[in-house]
């Protein structure tokens, strides 16, 4: 996304003064209208916490997997609507199933991440569902707007998406053979740059009045917003995952909440200090754990009750 936008806006800005009559730059071209119209919301999307972290390599596998799930539902919906409208005059020139379609690739990625039973393990999140609903609505009632959704996702996948692929591969140590990243791999496209040029030429082939072009730009902005909602949702989920990590697991060790049995320093120290200190540490660890606390309290209550009964 970023590269594509940077290229087109750079040339749009550097072109010099606009002439009278037919503009030398033809701002009527849908490809340019879309690029210009989504520039602002594109920057916003790039600056969401989720994306910023992702680009820095800070992406936890659990979130990446959930992201792939959201993408699966999104592309399933989009490609279903594209199939429905493949001969519609407002979409036909952009019909590139072999080159672009991602649903099968995403299914393979999800199988890699969740196992052969992945379909029963994944579900559509609320934010993704809103996105999916809009896509179906558009595909069934106003197919020309499907162009905006296809543009937003596919062009992005072929631009910044390629950068994300490499970041993800390193950050999560995914195999170099490409499993888990098939979404980002367009086997049918040798040069992303050339394909994008072809795609733009096809967008500009569509016969559209001014009003429709405006609606297309507005819908593309909406598409970005749907994507940002999914990012934000992932970010929220990310926070709860963090808490679980800190709460779960016994015994806890240090402010970081790590598993003490894995700490080499600790085990060395314990070996030196002898067993009693360990028991004490363990007791303290148990009591810091909320479940441990419940158990202790219950145990205390039970003991008290039993003692009371016994001594009566």
């Amino acid at each position, binding site marked *: 996304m*970023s*590269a594509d936008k*940077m*290229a*087109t806006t750079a*040339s749009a800005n*550097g*072109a*010099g003064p606009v*002439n009278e009559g*037919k503009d*030398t*730059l033809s701002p009527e071209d849908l*490809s*340019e209208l879309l690029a210009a119209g989504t520039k602002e919301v594109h920057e916003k999307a790039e600056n969401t916490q989720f994306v910023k972290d992702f680009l*820095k*390599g800070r992406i936890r596998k659990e979130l990446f997997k959930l992201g792939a799930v959201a993408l699966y539902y999104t592309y399933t919906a989009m490609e279903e609507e594209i199939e429905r409208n493949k001969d519609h005059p407002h979409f036909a*020139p952009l019909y590139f199933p*072999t080159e672009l379609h991602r649903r099968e690739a995403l299914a393979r990625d999800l199988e890699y991440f969740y196992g052969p039973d992945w379909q029963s393990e994944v579900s559509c999140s609320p934010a993704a569902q809103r996105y999916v609903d809009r896509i179906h609505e558009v595909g069934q009632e106003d197919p020309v707007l499907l162009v905006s959704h296809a543009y937003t996702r596919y062009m992005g996948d072929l*631009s910044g998406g*390629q*950068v994300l692929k*490499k970041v993800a591969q*390193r*950050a999560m140590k995914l195999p*170099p053979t490409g499993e888990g990243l098939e979404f980002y791999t367009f086997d049918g*496209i*040798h*040069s992303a740059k*050339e394909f994008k040029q*072809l*795609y*733009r*030429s*096809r967008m*500009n*082939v569509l016969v559209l009045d001014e009003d429709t072009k405006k609606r297309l730009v507005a819908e593309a902005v909406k598409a970005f917003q749907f994507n940002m909602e999914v990012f934000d949702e992932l970010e929220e989920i990310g926070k709860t995952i963090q*808490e679980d990590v*800190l709460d779960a697991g016994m015994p806890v060790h240090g*402010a*970081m*909440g790590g598993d003490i049995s894995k700490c080499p320093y600790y085990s060395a120290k314990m070996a030196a200090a002898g067993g009693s200190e360990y028991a004490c540490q363990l007791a*303290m660890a148990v*009591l810091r754990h*909320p479940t441990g*606390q*419940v158990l*202790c*309290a*219950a145990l*205390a*209550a039970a*003991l*008290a*009750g039993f*003692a*009371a*009964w016994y*001594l*009566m």
Partner: protein
Amino acid sequence: MQRVNMADMDADTAAHTEPSVEEEEPFFSNLDLLLFSLIVGLVVYWYMSRKKPEPIPEFKKLDTAAPAARETSFIEKMKKTGKNIIVFYGSQTGTGEEFANRLSKDAQRYGMKGMAADPEEYEMAELARLSQIENSLAIFCMATYGEGDPTDNAQDFYDWLQEIDDEDLSGLNYTVFALGNKTYEHYNAMGKYVDKRLEELGAKRIFDLGLGDDDGNLEEDFVSWREQFWPSVCEHFGVEASGDDSSIRQYELKEHTDLNMNKVYSGEMGRLKSFEVQKPPYDSKNPFLAPVTVNRKLNKAGDRHLMHVELDITGSKIRYDSGDHVAVFPTNDSAMVNKLGQILGVDLDVVISLNNLDEESNKKHPFPCPTTYRTALTHYLDISQPPRTNVLYELAQYASDPKDQENMRRMSSSSPEGKALYHSWVQGACRNILAILEDMPSLRPPVDHLCELLPRLQARYYSIASSSKVHPDRISICAVVVEYETPTGRTNKGVATNWLKNKLVTDNGHKSTVPMFIRKSQFRLPFKTTNPVIMIGPGTGIAPFMGFIQERGWLKEQGKEVGETLLYFGCRYKNEDYIYQEELEEAEKKGVLTQLNIAFSRDQEQKVYVQHLLKNSKEHLWKLIHSDNAHIYVCGDAKNMAKDVQTALQDIAEELGGMTRTQATDYVKKLMTKGRYSQDVWT
């Protein structure tokens, strides 16, 4: 602590209260006590569950949570551990760090000791004193982040570099490898800055800045740079490779004596026997063996050989579009392979495997194994291109004549004399590995090491010269055979073009076949058939346009309304290399080609090329481009022709569009971005 005791105390208290009231009437009933202890338990639980939210640890804190006694002087650390090479890394996602680690490990191969270091953890000002260590070298693996910024861990280093003006870094030997991505505007800004700044401050650059492009192939860029880098380091320090002068091999040779030939590769790219049992889908690992049905010479005279080759893809289920590329897997000339075997004194038909010594590596073998040397040198290895300097460096040890060895080492170093020698003796003289062995009789490497060093033989790509609408079962290739005399009096032959030329159509049962697959391109006729089409393709650049013209003709026959179709073709002499003359004139007659413009460059005194013809019809062209939505296609030579054509079109836009130079340039660039100006060009 407190709470624990309280809980224990409560339990104890509850237990202890009992005996004290044992003699009297129980003050509390059983139930009361049970309820009481339950309440206490619940209170305890509630109190302890009110823990403060744990702060989510920032990644950075982990980094800086270091024990106080940590060494921040890298010079001290190097002295203590006997290292002379330090590799600093500016890394965000870990790649720069990985490269730094690999480089520091490399050092020992060359008799030196290296360590990787995070600039954030050390006092970088010590760079001024690195010369205290003998034969010291600082390598920098610097990634660029965002808008030309340093990575987080290199921020301080960057600030320091900017602030110090009077620091004298003479005595510091350094080199930089930059990691970046060409799709970003400030490509490799950080690496470039460090390289330049250190020089400004007086440090000595001992090897060229390496530029890695993550949009292309960062790993490859790194490996190529590193291959040239180490030999030049050794040269610079006058250091010999470690131990007994033998370099460390990557692969181990295993000879097979009793292997069933069914298990031996005979040229397949992927699956064994994939050439015998053909199964779709066909791709680079599983090419289709297409029979050659036509192989004719296109030119009528002259010393070159232009050919038209047709491949039959019936039954393969292969589909293509005009404008796509056909990839073919050529083989090396068998005479050349035999000569190599003779000069190295080996039996080429021994069955061998080369197994990777690094068991962790994904690349088990350098080429499909087990196989014979003959197959490897014929199908899998490139023996025609001039060997790269790292190959020369590794082979140098096998030159028994010390002068030969010295020359080999010199040519692989980065000293100016070395570079010049390589440039003239290898590149300028067009010496391939066989020529080098012939001209350096004392150089006799073992054949297995040579096979480890030679690069893989690549598939060649040709623009398809037919239309699948008209010829769905046939793929046409238009190519010129490469053959030239070298300064040493040898004749160098292009691998693929000579191989194709010899794929003759035979009358007897045995068919010549070509292992091929299709690589889709985005070079496409316009979606709307009414769009005018301007095709510019001199020489063999006409190839895809033969397909385009066939397709436009087919569309017309289908009753579709077809826009203007213009061709600008160029060749040397009308009577010699006007290829496809009959087909083109026929198309013009039928009105499929609305304009046929040919530039015969040498038929008159002054040279006439396609760009001149463009200027001749500039008004018509401008109308088509600016008002009629024409699509422009350029195919052929990238270096000169494509640039000249682009300039000519910019001139037309400037003149007839009333634009400034800048506007015209942008106008043409815009046409490219919008997919109305496509190029299929090669160097």
